[in-house]
């Protein structure tokens, strides 16, 4: 590292919002992915992979106004390409085109990265690891419930047993506005207040509608309504025409409870993200101590038709970095050394022993004979044992206990993983 005043190469920095992942974090992220993948597989969701680069004109079809902020570049024919800023849209494209003949319902999962230019001045990653699942070709509350049940199970398997999922419904909100006779211009004001999460502006817009109670009070409080079934009863009482929508959400709560996720779920009519893209239930999952949702999702019945075969769809996306942050807080501070042996001579004179132990499932980190960095290497990377030839047998250091011992055969002295 260059000291003040001393010339050295310029620091090899990364673009804004980019970061490297070192072995410990990589291992932990892969562990989380593995657990989520196993839960998705247990529900019959099969993994798909889409290209990182897509044609902008195709992805932009997904919703009014296109896909929004993204890295864009040109191909050699001058066509605009986009680094996928989201996976729901490419997966919807894949299902609507490549799996158009599938009898349905189609259940797909993905574990991949998305790319978004970070807003200026914000500590936001340009690259995000996501895990998600989409259920295509199934409409009702039972499909919504399965996806929410899958999300809660996946988060629990990843170690987040106390996640909460807030569930709203843009069709219920629309039904309330219909029932109260709100004009399109008024809705636009409410919509922009909701998407800015500005409850002060929402209440002002609601007040300007000149409604009579109980509709007036209900509308003003709508995005602040959070709780259980009593919230739905209140809405249905105030706006009778919204009753079918409330009934659908109540049924969803029952089904989610039957999935074993009832404790985690609450109604929250303030979850009103992206009105253009979502058409029904919308939800966000929260973890204590993480200031933004660890997962978001919802129903987007109108998207598939823009790419190919129109089918209803519902799904979610977990942001792995946020999930990792949530569960990293629960890990023990000092991890014990991991099973594995740094074998001096394993790179040259003692290759046979290295091969035999690897075949038995024990990681062997090889060094050439006489290399004196063995103990420092084991400490840096957290390996439990250090072994070197001594006479006819081996000298072994166990870093878990701090003791050294001699043995004839390494394979007998070091327990192989089960």
């Amino acid at each position, binding site marked *: 590292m260059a000291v003040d005043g001393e010339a050295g190469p310029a620091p090899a920095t990364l673009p804004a919002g980019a970061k490297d992942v070192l072995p410990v974090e990589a291992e932990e992220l892969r562990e989380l992915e593995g657990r989520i993948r196993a839960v998705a597989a247990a529900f019959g969701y099969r993994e798909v992979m889409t290209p990182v680069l897509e044609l902008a004109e195709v992805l932009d079809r997904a919703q009014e106004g296109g896909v929004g902020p993204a890295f864009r570049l040109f191909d050699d024919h001058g066509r605009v390409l986009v680094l996928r800023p989201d996976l729901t849209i490419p997966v919807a494209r894949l299902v609507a085109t490549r799996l158009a003949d599938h009898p349905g319902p189609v259940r797909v999962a993905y574990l991949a990265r998305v790319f978004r230019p970070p807003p200026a001045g914000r500590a936001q990653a340009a690259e995000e690891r996501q895990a998600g699942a989409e259920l295509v070709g199934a409409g009702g509350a039972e499909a919504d419930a399965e996806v929410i049940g899958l999300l809660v199970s996946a988060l629990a398997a990843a170690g987040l047993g106390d996640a*909460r999922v*807030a569930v709203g419904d843009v069709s219920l909100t629309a039904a309330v506005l219909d029932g109260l006779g709100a004009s399109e211009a008024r809705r636009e004001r409410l919509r922009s207040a909701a998407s*800015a*999460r*500005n*409850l*002060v*502006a929402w209440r002002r817009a609601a007040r300007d509608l000149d409604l009579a109670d109980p509709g007036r009070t209900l509308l003003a409080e709508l995005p*602040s309504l*959070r*709780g259980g079934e009593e919230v739905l009863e209140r809405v249905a009482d105030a706006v009778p025409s919204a009753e079918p929508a409330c009934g659908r959400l109540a049924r969803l709560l029952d089904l989610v409870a039957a999935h074993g996720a009832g404790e985690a779920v*609450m109604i*929250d009519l*303030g979850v009103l993200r992206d009105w253009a893209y979502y058409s029904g239930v919308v939800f*966000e999952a*929260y*973890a*204590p*101590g*993480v*200031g*933004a*949702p660890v997962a978001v999702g919802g129903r987007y019945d109108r998207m598939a038709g823009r790419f190919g075969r129109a089918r209803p769809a519902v799904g979610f996306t977990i942001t792995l970095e946020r999930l990792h942050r949530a569960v990293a807080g629960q890990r023990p501070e000092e991890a014990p050394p991991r099973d594995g042996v740094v074998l001096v001579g394993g790179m040259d004179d003692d290759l046979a022993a290295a091969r035999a132990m690897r075949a038995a499932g024990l990681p062997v980190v090889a060094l050439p004979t006489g290399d004196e960095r063995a103990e420092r290497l084991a400490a840096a990377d957290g390996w439990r044992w250090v072994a070197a030839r001594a006479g006819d047998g081996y000298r072994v250091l166990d870093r878990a206990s701090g003791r050294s011992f001699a043995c004839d055969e390494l394979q007998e002295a070091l327990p192989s993983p089960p």
Partner: protein
Amino acid sequence: MPLGALFDESVARLAAAGVDAAPLAGAGRRLVVASANGTTFITTRPSDVPTYVEAGAADVGIVGKDVLREQVPDVYEVLDLGFGRCRMVYATAEGEDPTPAALEHLGAVRVATKYPRTAEAHFAATGRAAEVVRVNGSVELAPLVGLAHGIVDLTSTGRTLRDNGLVAREEIFASSARLIANRVSHKLQARAVDDLVSRLEAS
């Protein structure tokens, strides 16, 4: 808790709403103070309040609408507290407004401000080109010494503007103190947030 102009009124409103804000009065230079009932108060510059709330370091915060309009943080704006009323204005030196001449001859008007985003948005929305110069203090100085044609700044009584020979030409928006909440706290601590809102509303 925002230090500065909004601080005293914020403490008073919280106390009136039955929040134990007494420890804040004797906080001295401490930045984090806890009350007996488990509330922890963080005091910081007003412009940092949204940053703490957005990241979840604070569940709720009090901050002026001027800061929210400038930073556009991803938080819930829960309640207009009504105090700390002031106006965001475009002001130029007394006498003839130099703005039309600048636009006609130079193509753009030069504006000094602590609120570059607000200033840019205002001139863009009114179909005029502006060169926005960011300064960090004593914005009133800029038109007096020829750094800019005008300023975009917050004013409550208009006294500082008058003292420096400036006149407000356009009002951009009216500001007041707002209660904001973190996205996750607004859900996971729904009852506590709602309770605070209804008590602040009633007080």
